[in-house]
């Protein structure tokens, strides 16, 4: 009898999960794949085929943009890691107990403000007549106004800014779990600072690093507003092309194909990253 109750409650708990995953994740994505396999041959006439994918392959613009998006996302991920790691380490290990909470909170506040506002803030700061250029002129460091906006470096800065919190949060929680004694043991046994970092802290933080990198990479590759608003004339981003396919060209079929390609591409990168570091999804991302 107890067994029956258990099974029933398991089924009751499983139902919302299954509805969610099947109806909102799996079916839509299958639908998207299905749609991407429809070729538009005339108004309101479609046939089944790989035309949308062939178009993608034949048009260098598309895959160049995808590669560009991918490589810039990787760059952003690496930068976020390099910038964020010392911060996370400081919060988790060096800050006093009280300032730790405050710093962590400070880290989070930009997280709760939308992309749009963050980009808006950057625009106000960086434009040729913006705060930074003006103040630099006032101070006398530059004589002419300088345009900081509208180039790839700005896009990268903006993206790093947008995503770095997602790097810091998992890192802090992993590093928090590391016993200080481990680092001390590293020194005590004769390790210098870099040795301890390389042989002890980084290996220990690996799950957090990987989790942070995955989330950051995915968010970057999937971001839309930041590259659009901060980007210069050469800054195409793959999500922008998806948007264009859907919105300005009404070409849902090819947009769906692009969507699927983006998903496949980013998944591939993540998979490769996991293989290289010997981690798996369940014990990294899920841990936080």
């Amino acid at each position, binding site marked *: 009898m107890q067994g029956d109750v258990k099974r029933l409650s398991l089924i009751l708990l499983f139902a919302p999960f299954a509805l969610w995953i099947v109806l909102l994740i799996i079916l839509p994505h299958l639908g998207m794949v299905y749609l991407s396999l429809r070729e538009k041959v005339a108004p309101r006439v479609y046939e089944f085929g790989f035309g949308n994918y062939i178009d993608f392959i034949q048009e260098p613009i598309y895959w160049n943009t995808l590669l560009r998006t991918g490589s810039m996302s990787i760059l952003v991920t690496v930068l976020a890691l390099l910038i964020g790691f010392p911060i996370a380490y400081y919060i988790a290990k060096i800050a006093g107990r009280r300032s730790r909470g405050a710093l962590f909170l400070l880290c989070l506040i930009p997280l709760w403000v939308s992309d749009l506002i963050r980009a808006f803030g950057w625009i106000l700061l960086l434009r040729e007549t913006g705060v930074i250029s003006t103040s630099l002129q006032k101070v006398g460091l530059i004589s002419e106004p300088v345009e900081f906006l509208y180039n790839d470096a700005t896009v990268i800065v903006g993206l790093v800014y947008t995503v770095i919190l997602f790097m810091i949060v998992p890192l802090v929680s992993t590093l928090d779990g590391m*016993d200080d*004694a*481990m680092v*001390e*043991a*590293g*020194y*005590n*046994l*004769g*390790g*210098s600072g870099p*040795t301890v970092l390389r*042989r*002890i802290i980084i*290996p*220990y933080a*690996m799950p957090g690093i990987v989790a942070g990198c995955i989330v950051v990479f995915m968010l970057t590759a999937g971001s839309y507003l930041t590259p659009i608003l901060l980007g210069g004339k050469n800054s195409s981003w793959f999500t922008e092309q998806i948007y264009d396919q859907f919105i300005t060209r009404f070409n849902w079929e090819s947009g769906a194909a692009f969507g699927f390609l983006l998903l496949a591409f980013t998944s591939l990168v993540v998979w490769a990253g996991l293989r290289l570091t010997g981690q798996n999804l369940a014990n990294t991302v899920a841990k936080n």
Partner: protein
Amino acid sequence: MNDAVEHDLECTGLSKHFGSVRAVDDVSFRIPKGSFFSILGPSGCGKTTLMRMIAGFENPSDGDIHIKGRSVLNIPPNRRNVKMVFQHLALFPMMNVFENIAYGLRCAGTPKSEIPQKVNDVLERIALPDVGNREIHQLSGGQKQRIAIARCMVLDPDVLLLDEPLGALDLKLREAMKIELKLLQHQFNTTFIYITHDQSEALVMSDNVAVMNEGRFEQVGKPEELYHKPATSFVAGFVGDSNRWAGKVEQISDGVAKVATEAGLSILCKPQAGVEKGAPVSIFVRPEFIAAQRAGEAGPPDANSNALAGKVDSVLFNGANSRILVRGPSSELIEADVVVTGGTSDLRPGDAVQLNWAPEQAMCYAR
């Protein structure tokens, strides 16, 4: 300062203040070469802080530390030849046993070819020759313990620091490791400094014990000295079990004080330095020095000894360490060691008994 070289470690006037907390307060001591030295004290008394200063993880607020006669104040922790076994061991979970032990050697720049030899040697000495390839989580608690020691010993340290390394182990294992640690120290013949709040660990293993309280050393001495001749009332209460009374000295004669306790008893005892007539004192009597006899069997009370009539409240059987709780005349409980054989002569709850102890066994300290 020629004799300093004879000592592996010497601290002089060492202090550490965290804000207004005096975690370690003007501590001086020397540890002779190759000995097993314990620091015993209640939680929060500053033991760990003291050890961390020796290892170099904290800078002293004041005082100096000499290792092998050389001041190490300006040497960073990774350059001091003082190794440390941490409370939770701090073995590196991302490396296997071999790598854990080899870590220090690699840091020291030992040639690659010599490392396996050295690691295997030390593994053999701790009697775990075949665990090199195991992961840390595949080891039992006692094995981890020994690996943590091996990891330090392979570097041939001047001094090995151990911070309550048995705290995380379970009871039976802790008993076994006590003896094992002592044997390991014999074997390596290195100076061990051992921190603990468990008096039996400190007494059993050490050549010398320092009893620490509120950042200061109360007494440093051989285990027997601490137990039998505690210098302060703190040491008397902290080391070994005791019955304890508070009272006032009524008179002192012939090196024996007569004390009236707050509960109304009159106890003869041996006054320690500083005890004067009329002074409030604490009296400590160890249960093993109290003899319990059936009321009928005991002779008449001796005026030069202490005697109390009471009733057995409970018998705490614990093999060779059995004890009875006796409810004395003023209804407090007094502990006395007894032998329980399981035979008919054993005392049972409710039996009337007389408790006797000699004045010399009642230590009396000014409060």
